[in-house]
């Protein structure tokens, strides 16, 4: 093999030397290792889903995180807006209802009285201020404990007409009215709006019942401390 240097006689003698062989256990160990190395190929077959395990787990984590975040945000919004809304509900809804009722309860339109409730020549409002005896078709606020049935039926139509006729200034005034105490006021004098109440005071004044008028006014101010009183009652 190694060109002319090789000595054939020497090589022949070398081959006659006792053959040394690896042990059978060594053969078995090496062959087993060789087989194991190539039979470890099957992992490639599993690789299609194994290779997806990491991306899928990351995607699942992201979905769970985003979902939880959105849920928490929604819960927070609900907690911030839902609860106060529930508390505010009477305050926000009631004035509108009572405003409508006020308009309905108001007598014939005295258009140009933004802050002052003009005394009405008709007795209807006075009558309306006392529900048990109210003959006129007057709208009664829904907060009233015992709304008269028959007149109330006509109320929506009247309210609508009055509302249309009401000047914008009146609306502004009404919207600016303090709401929270109104509930108490209504509770104290059911079916009586501030305007009606003030009409009552005026009537007492006109009738010369100054003491009663003063008491009624004091009671009114107690009930509506923030109400801007008409000039004639200040």
């Amino acid at each position, binding site marked *: 093999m190694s060109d002319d240097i090789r000595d054939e006689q020497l090589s022949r003698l070398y081959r006659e*030397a006792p053959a040394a062989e690896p042990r059978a256990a060594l053969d078995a160990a090496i062959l087993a*290792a060789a087989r194991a190395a190539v039979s470890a*190929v099957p992992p490639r077959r599993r690789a299609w889903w194994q290779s997806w395990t990491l991306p899928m787990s990351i995607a699942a984590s992201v979905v769970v995180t985003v979902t939880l975040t959105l849920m928490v945000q929604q819960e927070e919004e609900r907690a911030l807006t839902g609860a106060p809304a529930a508390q505010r509900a009477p305050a926000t809804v009631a004035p509108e209802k009572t405003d409508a009722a006020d308009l309905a309860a108001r007598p014939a339109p005295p258009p140009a009285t933004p802050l002052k409730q003009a005394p009405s020549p008709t007795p209807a409002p006075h009558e309306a201020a006392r529900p048990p005896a109210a003959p006129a078709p007057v709208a009664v606020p829904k907060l009233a404990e015992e709304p008269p049935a028959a007149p109330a039926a006509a109320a929506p139509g009247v309210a609508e007409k009055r509302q249309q006729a009401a000047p914008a200034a009146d609306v502004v005034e009404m919207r600016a009215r303090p709401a929270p105490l109104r509930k108490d006021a209504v509770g104290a004098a059911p079916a009586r709006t501030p305007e009606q109440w003030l009409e009552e005071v005026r009537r007492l004044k006109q009738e010369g019942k100054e003491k009663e008028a003063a008491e009624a006014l004091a009671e009114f101010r107690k009930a509506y401390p923030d109400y801007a009183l008409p000039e004639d009652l200040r």
Partner: protein
Amino acid sequence: MHEEMSDEALMLAYRDGDAAAFEALYRRWRSRLYRHLLRQCGNGAQADELFQDIWLKVVNARKGYEAAAKFSTWLFRIAHNRLIDHYRAQGRAHLASYDDDPDDDAAAAALPAAASQQPEALLERKALALELVRHIEALPAAQRETFLLSEEGELTLEEIAAATGTNRETAKSRLRYAVSKLRSALKDLK
């Protein structure tokens, strides 16, 4: 089927997952590689360890095997590298023996004395062959390796040079000295 395949084809088949191809290749080379190692280290236990390490390296390096390289050259190059590691682990004496590559008469004088004390036994062919093996084992490491690569590996000078990381002239020189010393020893025996 595997018996008709070349060493290189078998190794490529094994690289591609054919375990039986490795077994055929192993059967072809196991004895020669084992003897090559046994003559180098002269110790059965060490030869076993080296033998197993080398074949495991073949297994683990299968992906890097290219058909351009002759399998036997590749196998014995792995063996050479493992032997160098073995010499390093054994100590400086073995490495010095390999690196210095003594090829003078002094080295030849270091060969075992002709066993003229046992003339009857040495006349036997088997005994003569055993004596030859003893002389081979006593050669300087580089010469011994070169001689064994030529005999057991049946490598050419170029292949020996490639397997041992040297050039053809060095391989040729080592082989010449090895053969010369062994002839001389055999003459004494005869």
